[in-house]
């Protein structure tokens, strides 16, 4: 069936490369001829604040820059506290892609607030939506720092899930990141496709 468009929330904390992720993905969908609106909501504080990007592509003009709760097709999140913040917005058949990486909230560090009593990963798994969990500890590699490149790992993961052309996506990565980072990014991208491939085969 023809893909008429999707609503994606990309989430994480400052410094995780959410804007690069949405930038790479936007170039891919532009090439496919879709209309796009991407709205970046950056939280207070330069580092470690919550960041979310509302990413919409469609074969018709996109109206609202924000995705209404209940209209989200995919949540792609690089930090699991942030994943939990967005689960309620998913459609019934919406899908979650989440890293288990966690940057403890300041309010919890300083005991201004209690942390959630249960494991966040389990809470995500338990959601009624289809979930794909990526644990950076499990996929650690000497070739690249997975914690710093989870964005590109997730891009590979997502592209594999959607059945997109890796060749085209890698070409976009090549054209978009500074030359000295290209190889590292491609390694991370391929890692993402491998993790996704193994996970999808097991389901």
């Amino acid at each position, binding site marked *: 069936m023809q893909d008429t468009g999707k609503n994606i929330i990309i989430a994480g*904390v400052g*410094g995780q490369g959410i804007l690069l992720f949405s930038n790479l993905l*936007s170039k891919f969908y*532009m090439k496919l001829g879709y*209309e*796009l*609106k*991407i*709205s*970046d*909501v*950056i*939280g*207070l*504080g*330069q*580092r*470690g*604040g*919550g960041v979310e990007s509302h990413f919409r592509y469609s074969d018709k003009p*996109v*109206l*609202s*820059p*924000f995705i*209404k*709760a*209940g209209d989200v097709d995919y949540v792609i999140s690089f930090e699991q*506290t942030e994943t*939990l*913040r967005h*689960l*309620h*917005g998913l459609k019934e058949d919406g899908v979650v892609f989440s890293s288990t990486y966690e*940057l*403890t*909230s*300041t*309010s*919890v*560090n*300083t*005991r*201004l*607030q*209690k*942390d*959630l009593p249960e494991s966040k990963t389990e*809470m995500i798994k338990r959601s009624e939506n289809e979930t794909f969990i990526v644990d950076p500890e499990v996929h650690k590699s000497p070739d690249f*720092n997975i*914690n*710093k490149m989870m964005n590109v790992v997730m891009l590979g993961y997502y592209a594999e899930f959607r059945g997109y052309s890796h060749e085209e996506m890698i070409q976009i990565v090549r054209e978009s990141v500074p030359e000295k980072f290209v190889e590292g990014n491609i390694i991370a991208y391929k890692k993402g496709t491998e993790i996704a491939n193994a996970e999808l085969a097991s389901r």
Partner: protein
Amino acid sequence: MKTGNEFTAVKMMNGNEAVARGAFEAGVKVAAGFPGTPSTEVMDYTQHKYPEIYCEWSTNEKVGLEVAIGASFAGYRSLAIMKTVGLHVAADALGGAAGSQINGGLVLVVGDDVGRIAGDDYNDVRHYGNMFNIPVLEPSDSQEAKDLMVKAFEISEEYSTPVILKITSVICKTTSKVEYDEDYTYQVKCREIYPVSFSKVIMTTIMTKAKGSEHPKLTKCFNDFTANMKRLAQNSNDFDMNRLELNDKKIGVITAGTPYYYVKEVLPEASVLKLGLVMPLPEKMIKELAEHVDELYVIEDGHDLLEKNIKDLGVSVIGKELFPKFPDMMRFTPDVIEEKLVPNAPKRTPIEGVPFRLPVSCAGCSHLFISQILRKHKIKAAADVTCGLIGCFPHMESYSLQKCMGSSIALAHGYNIAKDHKENFVAMIGDGGFWATGINGLMNLIFNDSKSTVIIVDNSCLAMTGGQNVASSEFGFNYKPENKLDIATVCEAIGVKDIVTVDAYEFDDLEKSILNAVSAETNSVVIVKKPCVTKFKLPKETPSYIDQDKCVKCRKCIDVGCLAIESKKAEDGSVEIVINQDICTGCRLCSTACKFEAIKS
């Protein structure tokens, strides 16, 4: 406005980039302003993409606007860039320009931080439209941001008035496609119509006293600004940027900015008046819509200004009674409109108890060192608008007073004189705040014989907005080494008795310097130097780690307020304090807070 046939290129742009493109197409010659989220990047894009345009970050917004006003009088299209909080600083300059003769178009691009992205108190720039009786335009997407920019200059010249282009954090940070003429050639025109341009005080004095005179010495001072605005209001009924979309007769909505798109998505059948010019209002269009529909709503981000202005026209609309403004709602979302206007809309509620994130300083930030010393010695202090204000938040509690940019020096002085100098309430200020307006506070402090202590944090840039240049930076649009201002030299020239400069990372030195200054019998300045870790990408030292055998979990290191130090639940459920190895810069500040020598590197 451009029609579909005139563009040759399509590009994804965020609102800030689109505004810069509009400035280029409008033939702007001079752009001046002061950084402020969300509109800082308008200047960055203008400077990087269109080097033909003269750009400067001025010392503050008032200066920036005055530069633009001067350039406009010279006959060239000029642009002032700031956020609404900055326009408060520049309001006097705007009041002077409002209603005066305009040669080259004068446009202010002002960013409203709807939704509190950068956390300032919620402001609405349209108040200035009402107060000074000047036009305000508001785009709904990037395409319109570019197109309205050009239109704003035409209006400025045609109706002899400064024009505000209101952009919001949503416009600034949303990327959408912009169609434009790739081969457009930049053209600057000099338009010298008026030999004089005076503030309203001078003009109205002459206009009212010499009414009917034809003497050229008198008539050259005439500028009938109220008539101009009436003419604009009348003509706005025919502007393309104001669009009446008559559909369903039940629900009608008057809206502007990105809320227009929320309305179109949630209420596709509704009749809509989409305003591009939000001040003055197109009365005829509003009344036509009001007659067409049973229920008329106004949906606007920010304060209830459209609503009030529409009601003043004698039209009854439903606004804040259905959509309460504060504190319930910071800005509109499609969800809010659906909840109120779509029957039986499903309600989605977020998971409860997901911890919130307070702002945190970057690991290795010099401000953390100062906060730590103030807290350690229980020194009472005022913070300024700087990255250091994070020290005001409840996880740090290093400061007890904080107001607007540049204020801390005068705040401390006021406190100290009221307390008869029996305690030394210290002022902390960043280099940006110091040059912006803080320097006035320092001059005031000296000639009024205050004994206060001022800590000036020199991180070589305006860090909070992403590292723009200030007067003492060693880079910048128009930077020349011989023109760089030096904070210590200026302080000395002003007459500060005791000035010391210290490296932030030399903890013991810094501690001693601050303690000496605070106990001194005279006024004093401590200049704390360390380039911003994020802007200048300072090289990282070996990250620190916590020896769990020695750690007693007193959490003193967490109180430092560094992003890298986390409280984690171990697998057995016990809590461990750990240092995030990817974030730690190895600055070793946390080790000064640990009595148990548990922090190692």
